């Protein structure tokens, strides 16, 4: 298990270096740090001097190494708009996004697993048919439309739920959390439901398809032939095997979910990283954009590594491969 984790961490570092390279190339090609620093009245000659001082005329690889060195130290450059370190800006916005993604992931798990299993066990029941029909519509519906429909009904017509912002938050050691106030939780509902609607149909279908496939296997037939209770066959024998591919896909999709927050956060004026990203695009804040790319890259890699390790615990065959 230890060797397995070490190997996964080395892979994660390589992935981060590649993401860093892509980020650096973007910054190198599009951004102009001199513009970020000086005003209009600085002459081209003076600019050239500043470029030299900043090392911007150094060869590409030297600049990249410097970039990586700084990034490891947590220095992702200064945001041109905020006049603050980019990482600081992002970290201030991160809790909002992370909480949104966490609640969304929770909704995904709590809804997709039971309904996927139900639809696999009773494929012909009316409930399964409705699930499948609704999930087909769900696949086709873009997130901003879902969000606007939800806002219209629950925010405007019924006036049950707040439709923008995070509401009241509590500051816990620098982490702005909406989990601890009723108002904060209420504000979480619509954004997280909208965000989960993108992945929910996929997950219900995935769980259902995997479960149906597992139910056809020989070891499930053998489990029936052993005279086990149906609950045991379904929830222990079949479900554990269904989980394996679901965990893998879940890990990848969780990362993609972070990217999808850009749309959701914009619709709901959710002050998270995605909202900040769009603002940064409008302001051509290249440093901040690259920093966002790298932070999201880190989240993606960390989540996937954790998922792989969990997978190793569920699947005995991975465990063995890791101890060799």
């Amino acid at each position, binding site marked *: 298990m230890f060797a397995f984790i070490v190997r996964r961490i080395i892979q994660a570092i390589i992935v981060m270096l590649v993401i860093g390279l892509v980020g650096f190339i973007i910054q190198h090609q599009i951004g102009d740090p001199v513009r970020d620093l000086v005003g209009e009245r600085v002459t081209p000659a003076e600019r050239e001097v500043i470029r030299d001082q900043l090392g911007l005329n150094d060869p590409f690889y030297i600049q990249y190494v410097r970039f990586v060195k700084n990034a490891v130290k947590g220095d992702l450059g200064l945001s041109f708009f905020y006049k603050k370190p980019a990482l600081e800006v992002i970290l201030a916005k991160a809790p909002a996004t992370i909480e949104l993604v966490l609640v969304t992931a929770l909704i995904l798990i709590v809804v997709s697993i039971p309904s996927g299993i139900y639809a696999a066990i009773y494929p012909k029941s009316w409930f399964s048919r409705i699930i499948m029909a609704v999930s087909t519509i769900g696949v086709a519906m873009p997130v901003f439309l879902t969000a606007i429909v939800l806002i219209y009904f629950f925010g405007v017509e019924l006036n049950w739920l707040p439709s923008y912002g995070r509401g009241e938050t509590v500051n816990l050691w620098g982490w702005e959390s909406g989990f601890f106030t009723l108002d904060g939780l209420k504000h979480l509902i619509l954004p997280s439901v909208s965000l989960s609607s993108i992945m929910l149909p996929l997950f219900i279908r995935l769980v259902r398809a995997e479960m149906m496939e597992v139910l056809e*296997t*020989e*070891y499930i*037939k*053998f*489990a*029936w*032939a*052993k*005279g*086990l*209770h149906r609950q*045991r066959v379904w929830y*222990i*024998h079949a479900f*554990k*095997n269904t989980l*394996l591919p679901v965990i893998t896909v879940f890990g990848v999709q969780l990362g993609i979910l972070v990217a999808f927050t850009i749309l959701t956060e914009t619709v709901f004026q959710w002050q998270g990283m995605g909202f900040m990203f769009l603002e940064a695009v409008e302001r051509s804040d290249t440093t901040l954009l690259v920093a966002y790319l790298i932070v999201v890259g880190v989240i993606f890699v960390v989540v996937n590594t954790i998922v792989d390790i969990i997978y190793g615990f*569920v*699947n*005995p*065959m991975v465990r*063995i491969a890791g101890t060799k």
Partner: protein
Amino acid sequence: MSHLLEVKDLEVKFALRFGDLTAINGVSLTLDKGERLGIVGESGAGKSVTGFAIINLLSKPGYISAGRVLLEGQELNRLPEEDMRKIRGNRISMIFQDPMMTLNPVLTIKTQMIETILAHANVSKTEATDIALDKLKKVHIPSSEKRIHQYPHECSGGMRQRIVVAIALLTNPALIIADEPTTALDVTIQAEIMDLLQELCASEKMGLILITHDLGVVSQVTERIAVMYAGKIAEIGPTQVVIHDPQHPYTQGLIKALPGSLQPGSRLNQIPGMMPTLTDIPPGCAFHPRCTISDTICRMEVPALISRHDHDHMIACHVVK
């Protein structure tokens, strides 16, 4: 005297969109306590379906459309599902073809063993573990205390099939149905598993239904043979009689097709043609298009399974009587 198992005029159909397909068409057989019966035939003859019909575990859309299955006088095919569950894995155990696929890859051998005991007997986990270890010893698993904590992928194919046999033995069943238990194994392990099954059936007084297409295996292990063709029994009788003095032209063909008696290098005998698919069973005797001695009546009437002079030997053929 009542039999351990009695199958009477069993008929199994598969409900398809275009109507029902008959997979088993009037199969009757009996098995006494401790008796070993082989069911042989080509693929698609209905051997496995018969096995699954006995424990009422036909995969959908298959269902028993007529006939009765009696275990110790109790009619199984009309039992409520919960009562049938108590019989499966308890009074009747099954052994499947491919040990690589039969055991659940994510559960330990221990889990898969004790759950079977706990599903049928009111014992503690410790007692169940002791029973499991005892059965693993019976099937000659070395260092079973260590093995029992392992996962299936840590064991070889032969080892896994022995574990499957041990699982089948856990509740001391009256009957074991083994569906091609050695087909997926190599020859030396085949012999080992067959010896084991035979030895256990004798010592534990268990009935055995051995479903296979391997006549060699059947002749060594079983006391009686039923030869199936296109969902019906073509010939049934004591193993030695059927193997050495086959009467039905199909059985004769099967036995002639064995390479054993041939000169090395000569062509193997084969039965001309193919077994009909279930959608397209010829009228009359299903075997007549491939039969060398068929008569006009064979094309018109389905032959009944009739006893020969020896009461225990029955064949379904118009020509051979």
